[in-house]
């Protein structure tokens, strides 16, 4: 067995995460923010590992 099978398994893992999530929580491009946060005038709202719960 080579590293190829492990790399393919890693890709399968992320495709599984995305696939399961897209069916449960489909994204909506019509509510998307502007391409860049800088200059958008909107407050940052993403989750981050350094942030305490808001």
């Amino acid at each position: 067995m080579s590293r190829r099978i492990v790399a393919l398994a890693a890709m399968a893992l992320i495709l599984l995460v995305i696939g399961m999530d897209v069916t449960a929580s489909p994204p909506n491009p019509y509510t998307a923010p502007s391409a860049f946060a800088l200059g958008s005038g909107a407050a940052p709202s993403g989750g981050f590992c350094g942030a305490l719960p808001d």
Partner: protein
Amino acid sequence: MSTAVEYSDVRGPWGRVARRGALVIGALIAVVLVAALAGPRFGLMLAIGLGLGMTLEGLRFGFAGPWRAMILRRDPAGILAQLLSIAIVAIVAIPLLQSHAGELVGAEAPVGFAMIGGAFVFGAAMQVVLGCGSGTLVNAGSGNPVGLLALPFFAIGSFFGAYSLVWWTDLGSLPIIVLRGGQGLAITLVLLGAVAAFLLWRAAPGTRRIPGRYIAAALLLAAFAIGNLLVAGQPWGVVYGLGLWVAKGAVGAGVDLSGSAFWSAPGNAARLGDSVLTDYTSLTNFGLIAGAFVIANWRAGGLSAPLPSLPARAWVATVIAGLLLGFSSRLAFGCNVGAFFSGISTGSLHGWVWFAAAFAGSWVGVGLRPRLGLEART
């Protein structure tokens, strides 16, 4: 020579061109697809993640390895490159965070008992599996079985660390301290220079230079990290996304997360219902894995190496280290990316404390790794 390499050679240069073309087209399609499904910002974030993964795998750069090189061989080249990259990001990010405070936010977190302990444990665990936050993802994407096994347990640990984060933080924390503006940038650069000077002083003879490959990696990492800040409005991070995947899975399975102050907080509760394709750290995490996969496939024979033969205790150690990586990085308010790289480059004091505690933990981890069967004992 392995079978895969022989097969690749039989197909000749045209087969290689076709394979590489398919990899590039596949990556571009993924970015366009995410942009179309979720919005252009999220397509850009996946592209940034792909760039980060390609940089780390393509230039064989990382965080755990250079720290190990300094501890074992007093070779500071990799850490010096990390400090260079952090300095470049700081020069751009700290002034921007001040001038666009309503649109951008830094990796700001408090220093506390659990934060310091978490960073120490993270440093030890990342040396056991020789993979940090970004490194575990890149290792998995490039076919490293230790990285792949550690990854799901890293995510589970991150979920539980976040679940109990407030309890741990309440054990004792300082207010958030941030080095802001021109003065904050000057202090950050002086501190980075002081650490670099200390490392050069302690370096073994003949190691006091940064190879061109590491300089290229430092510049590219800085460019992508700055891009992350400009597009997402927040710095590059890893562990939030990993914990979110498990939290979404738990909610999907009917688990009630209202008992967690973290997951029931309005912002996090909303993200549990949003698409993972709109979560910044998830997208860069996907990109890190896929970018490493692209580069590993790009190299001739890059994935044909046989898997390592490790004793059972090494696999058990990998599972435990994966859980600890995830749990401890949440208590520490980030891993080597969110706390060390992004924390210091956006002026947060916790990034510096994380660096010291995690480096101390790395000394322990370097000693543990051979005892746990993950390398030949010397």
